[in-house]
């Protein structure tokens, strides 16, 4: 890494995330439409939706308390903070310190915690059900994510996301390809599970009984719901970019080129999610734990492969 990186470049990852994360959802929708033989909604539909939502009023349930209103705010603030520590395509994050990867996991945990509490605050059994599933699947997905990060830390001898992905080179892929590929598979499962996509959750389902994330936010409306939707897009971006960084080892050519490659990779992830959602059905709820435990086991196997 060059010592003096242009500060403008350094702040590009969060700025790009703020601006372009809703586009990822648009790309997913478009891909699904393409597979379904439809024209689909415009690429920028999510932006229109957000715009519409922030200009609406709000309806709050009489059962709810201040926690219900705090949920979307703290959740969005937490995921916004994540943007400060995530590098992109070889460009380090604005802030990098020992243990920032654990802060990232902690912030995503905080986002989930407040969302779950806000859901329970409504007293609705549907939202309780969604919250119950969310905490269950998150508890099982977290070991996989942390084991992947631990493997990368061992590989690169660093404990900060920016340094880890800066230290990850093409040589690693050529020497330890199988281990990294296993990690990649495990990470993709985590990305899909954490972002409530098929095969774990179906964001397009219309039956409350089968939802996870969508049912937890049933009672939110107006600006609150806009915060939640935007937060979800940012979370997809944050976790997606980890997988892109894993796949695209740092190349020291030009940071702008790196950013472009990262962006391309993210849109690739969005297309991939769209393809997965178009080509397979979601798993039964009872099978999802097996998938997540499987991802954790894959990550552990990958880690053992790294031990030479």
């Amino acid at each position, binding site marked *: 890494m060059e010592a003096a990186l242009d500060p403008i470049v350094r702040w590009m990852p969060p700025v790009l995330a703020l601006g372009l994360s809703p586009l990822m959802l648009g790309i997913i929708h478009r891909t699904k439409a393409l597979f379904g033989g439809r024209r689909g909604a415009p690429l920028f539909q999510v932006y229109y939706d957000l715009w519409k939502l922030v*200009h609406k*009023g*709000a*309806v*709050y*349930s*009489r*059962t709810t*308390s201040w*926690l219900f209103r705090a949920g979307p*705010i703290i959740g*969005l*603030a*937490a995921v*916004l*903070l994540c943007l*400060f520590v995530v590098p992109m395509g070889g460009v380090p994050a604005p802030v990098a310190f*020992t*243990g920032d990867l*654990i*802060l990232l*996991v*902690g*912030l995503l*945990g*905080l986002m*989930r*915690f407040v969302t*779950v*509490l806000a859901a*329970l*605050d*409504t*007293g609705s*059994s549907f*939202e*309780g059900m969604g*919250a*119950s599933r969310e*905490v*269950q699947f*998150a*508890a*099982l997905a977290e*070991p996989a*994510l*942390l084991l992947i*990060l*631990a*493997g990368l*830390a*061992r590989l690169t001898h660093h*404990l900060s996301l920016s340094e880890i992905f800066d230290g990850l080179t093409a040589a690693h892929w050529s020497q330890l390809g199988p281990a990294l590929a296993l990690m990649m598979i495990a990470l993709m499962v985590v990305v899909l599970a954490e972002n409530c996509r098929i095969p774990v959750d179906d964001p397009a389902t219309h039956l409350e009984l089968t939802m996870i994330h969508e049912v937890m936010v049933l*009672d939110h409306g*107006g600006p609150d719901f806009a*915060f939640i939707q935007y937060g979800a897009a940012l979370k997809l971006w944050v976790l997606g970019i980890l997988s892109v960084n894993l796949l695209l080892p740092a190349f020291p050519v030009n940071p702008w080129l790196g950013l472009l490659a990262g962006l391309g990779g993210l849109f690739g992830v969005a297309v991939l999610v769209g393809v997965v959602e178009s080509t397979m059905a979601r798993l039964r709820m009872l099978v999802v734990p097996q998938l997540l435990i499987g991802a954790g086991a894959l990550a*552990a196997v990958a*880690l*053992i492969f790294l*031990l030479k």
Partner: protein
Amino acid sequence: MSWLFAGLGCWVLGGLFSVGLSRRPRWVCWVSSVSVVTGAVLAAIPVVGVLMGGPVLQWRHGGSLPMGELALRLDALAAWFMVPLLLVSAMAAVYGAEYLKSSDRYCVGGAGFFFSLLVASMVGVILAADAVLFLIAWEIMSVSSFFLVTFEDDRESVCDAGWIYLVATHLGTGFLLAFFVLMGRETGTLDMQRWAELGVGDPRMAGVLFLLAVVGFGTKAGFMPFHIWLPEAHPAAPSHVSALMSGVMIKTGIYGLVRMMGVLGEPALWWGWTLVGVGLLSGVGGVLFALAQHDLKRLLAYSSVENVGLITMGLGFGLLGIASGNPVLGVLGFSGALAHVANHALFKGLLFLGAGSVVHATGTRFLDELGGLGKRMPWTAAVFVIGAASICGLPPLNGFLSELLLLLGAFRAVMAEPIGVVAAGILAVGSLALISGLSAATFTKAFGGIFLGEPRQPLPHPAHESAGAMRWPMGLLAAGCMAIGGMPFLMLAPLDRVLGSLSAPIEQGGISMVFEGWGQWLTLSALLLWGLAGLLAVARRGLLASKPVTEALTWDCGYARPTARMQYTASSFVQPLTDLFHPLLRARAQLERPEGLFPRRAAVATETPDLAHAELYKPVGERLVAHLGRLRWMQQGKVQVYVLYVALTMLILLLWKLH
């Protein structure tokens, strides 16, 4: 040192006055809380001094104990454990004065006396520099807490819990007695200060001593499978006593273990593995059983087992780091463990006091009978949610700081050599992640079940917010959680001095070596998080200013008449997870199925008995009692026969000695 004695004097005087005034319970409450708080403030002066880098304080009184002497020592490690002890006992005393006001039918004077005695004896345990004094203080601590646990002595369940606690703690003390006797024989002295200089020469002997210490201190700390007294005693005790026992008293076990690790000489690698293994077992087992509980205080007790497990795992990594010549791992392991000792005291004290407020207000501890208290008890709900988020290790609260240190330790172990340390690291990373996910499930369940939604059933007396004397202690503890979460240097700078005094390979400055700038980034992230949340709140207010904001029913998919009974209960909330871990939890369900064409009633009840209690201690204990029953003929109930036994025993001993 004189400040410390003034503090001790305050507690003793307060205790004596409590007994003297036992006819006037109101006065007892008042005297007891004032004396405990005053004593804590006085004793805090030298403690803070030592933690700020002051000299070690010592005091010695020539041979006035049989086989031992009165010797006290306040070094950085002792001071570290004193801080949560003084803070939580003062808060619990203030809270307890209000809490016990409505318990006139019980012996409030005795409770005041034993509370003061418990605080004084815990201070004695931490300061004792002599093995005999240590054991005496340890025993007073166990007995006084037994009397506090059995405060409501007209309830059978409370007395049973008290007995289990008394038996368990004395079994543990038995191991400690063996430890101290062997240690004394090995070194030829009972002066704990000299043990560190003399050391234990034989590594095999050191190993035996280490295991004795793990079992003896682990019983007090609540290591699995020696934890069975915790889920019995904590629910039985008054809540402020539970807060003190769970927040501080079980940590004396950790203190003893850390102290004794310092005198056993070079640690072996297997010591570290043992502690990591025990820690992970307690951590995962504790949080799983916590998840399955319906009783709030039982849930919190199991969660203490989990947190003690995390602390033990940290100590294990500390030992692994020293034994494998990896000081960074050593620093992270020990600092994570010690930081968690203090953090857990803050948030578990807070949560037990919160649980006390709920019990006080509603008369029940059962999650499925509660609900919707958040609106009636907004203050309690606000502090409880802070405690819950802290214990789940979420930023920007103090639980995250210790979780970060512990996880970094595990990551460092994964990055280290030899392969045995790496294996421990991989296990620990996976288990820590699982534990944090499961504790998030546990505490969203607990908080959601009690405070959110609608009340699930009408309660005997309508819930009310706690009185000021109960609210302020909780508020202060919650403020502590937020302050340490936002300003980690408050904790890390003194902790660094403690580590420096702990072990030779770890020098002062270790924390700043592995953790640049005393966690300044955590301060920044906490500020940013609060700032962003504030901005978003302002933004939302602005957006909604000119828009219609209305209130309505919760959306129930078109069903217009939802009732409170339709809510998801706490039990159903965790049912998928408890089912998944059924092989470990062995929950028993009693199901009454809906029968017939027009079913009128259906019911389900589950309970999760403690696995170790049901599968290990109960069968072993019953068999033991059956075998020992054969010796019952010796008990004739005649004094003459017993005198004969004494005479015979003395004769045998005499012969043995002459031989």
